[in-house]
């Protein structure tokens, strides 16, 4: 394994009963890199991320920061610096915005000062959250909830942030804002593994992409080498 790869995945397979959602994929994420997994609905993208987070049973080998995490229990994974910002945001609706952020820092809960600093950083990145910190998270708009989900995922200072469809259900303007924020997050040193249906916006911030079709990678390579039109017609079904 190359030392500059923070995540290395070998032969990842996810099965739901007799159906294979992910069929033996191999990929990696480099240090401070932004990588996207693209593909149509049901291609196996979300299953890949869920397997990495330990939420669903899987086969194959997952190495994160030179540590084999293939059999690690899901709640231990954030402690290693790998965080998943889940599909459909998954905020805690009955808790306040600030309590949602605090729970994001559960893995570093002993370090109160670091938590305070990180909350400030999140409010600097997403000012709207600071303005609404006492509000119940369930009362936020879709865009604000997405900001909260990303902010919460940043609270334990991940080395690699995984995001599942952050553009889902947002207006184009908000999507631009969210992806600008992802760029900022990446510049401060966090690697990003992104799963997206919105290929165009994802390609804007990614150095490499993997295109998934029926649980396998049909194309993989540097973003600049991939022709967007071919990609769109052949693999994304749009």
């Amino acid at each position, binding site marked *: 394994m190359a030392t500059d790869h923070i995540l290395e995945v070998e032969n990842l397979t996810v099965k739901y009963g007799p159906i294979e959602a992910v069929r033996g994929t191999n990929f990696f994420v480099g240090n401070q890199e932004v990588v996207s997994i693209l593909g149509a609905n049901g291609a196996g993208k979300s299953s890949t991320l869920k397997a990495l987070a330990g939420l669903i049973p899987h086969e194959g080998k997952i190495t994160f920061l030179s540590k084999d995490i293939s059999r690690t229990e*899901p*709640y231990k994974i954030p402690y290693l610096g790998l965080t998943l910002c889940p599909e459909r945001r998954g905020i*805690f609706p*009955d808790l306040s915005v600030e309590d949602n952020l605090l729970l994001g820092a559960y893995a570093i809960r002993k370090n109160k000062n670091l938590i305070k600093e990180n909350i400030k950083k999140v409010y600097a990145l997403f000012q709207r959250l600071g303005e609404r910190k006492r509000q119940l998270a369930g009362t936020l708009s879709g865009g604000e909830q997405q900001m909260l989900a990303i902010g919460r995922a940043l609270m334990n200072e991940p080395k690699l942030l995984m995001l599942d469809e952050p553009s889902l259900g947002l207006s184009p303007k908000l999507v631009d804002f969210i992806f600008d924020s992802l760029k900022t997050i990446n510049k401060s040193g966090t690697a990003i593994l992104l799963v997206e249906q919105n290929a165009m916006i994802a390609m804007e911030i990614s150095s490499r992409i993997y295109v998934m079709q029926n649980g396998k990678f049909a194309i993989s390579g540097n973003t600049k080498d991939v022709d967007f039109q071919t990609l769109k017609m052949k693999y994304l079904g749009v």
Partner: protein
Amino acid sequence: MVFQQIIAGIITGSLYAIVALGLVIAYKVTGVMNFAYGYMGMISAYIFFTCFSMMGMNYILSFFIAVTFGSFVGYAVERGLLRPVRNISPASMVIITLGLLLVLEGTALQIWGNNYQQIPNLLNGLPFILRFGGGIIVIPQQNILILGVVTAVIIALILYLNLTFQGKAMRAVAQNEEIAKLMGINSSLMMSISWIISGSIGALAAILVAPQTFVYPDMMLSLQIMGFTAAVLGGFESIPGSIIGGISIGIIENLVGTYISTNLKTTFSLAIIVAILIVKPEGLLGSTKARRV
């Protein structure tokens, strides 16, 4: 007279309220409606009886032993009986807790027999007497104790759930277990803790009510039913709802018992509650959408 009954209702209701609270916290975190709840507490009342009346330990020590035992029972039931079958349907879980009820009842019968055992009040001094206008209110000291302990438990629980990191993590597990795991929260541990809290509250309720009901295998039957009713009235998901539900039922029951008929007080109170639930099916403070399916 009315005030006297309302005060008495608040005392009874506060016991319903903590039973409801114990049921709701376990339900919210693990999704199990525990029909053996009162009977788990009953075992602790027997432990108290054994320590205090049979072995002659002092009251406070016996109390702590019994409540600790109750928390252990809560832990053991969740960890040993319910967690291995977490993936079965909620209805099957209910059947399991009903089975547990029978086992606990039988066990108590085997060990301690069918006699009504007596536990004394902790506070036996003269009752407090309040006079105002032409009226008079008499409050036995034991009732002050009950109200004090229940209030302390409720305040402690609310502070724990709202101000501590662990309490917030527990609420996160109750709202969405999978997402809570993504935050690094050990949801299995939170489930154990919720049942430990629930179990110790059940033991506490049983020991507090024992001087009035005596200790026998079915001593908690009515408290359990009324606790359930209080929880349902409060919406089954809400802690303030359980408290308000419990106290309202206590007051309604006492007023019905005094002014309508003692024999009908349970029937009548339940009828009133059914009427409230017909008008407001989600309960007094329940949410309209189901969070945990």
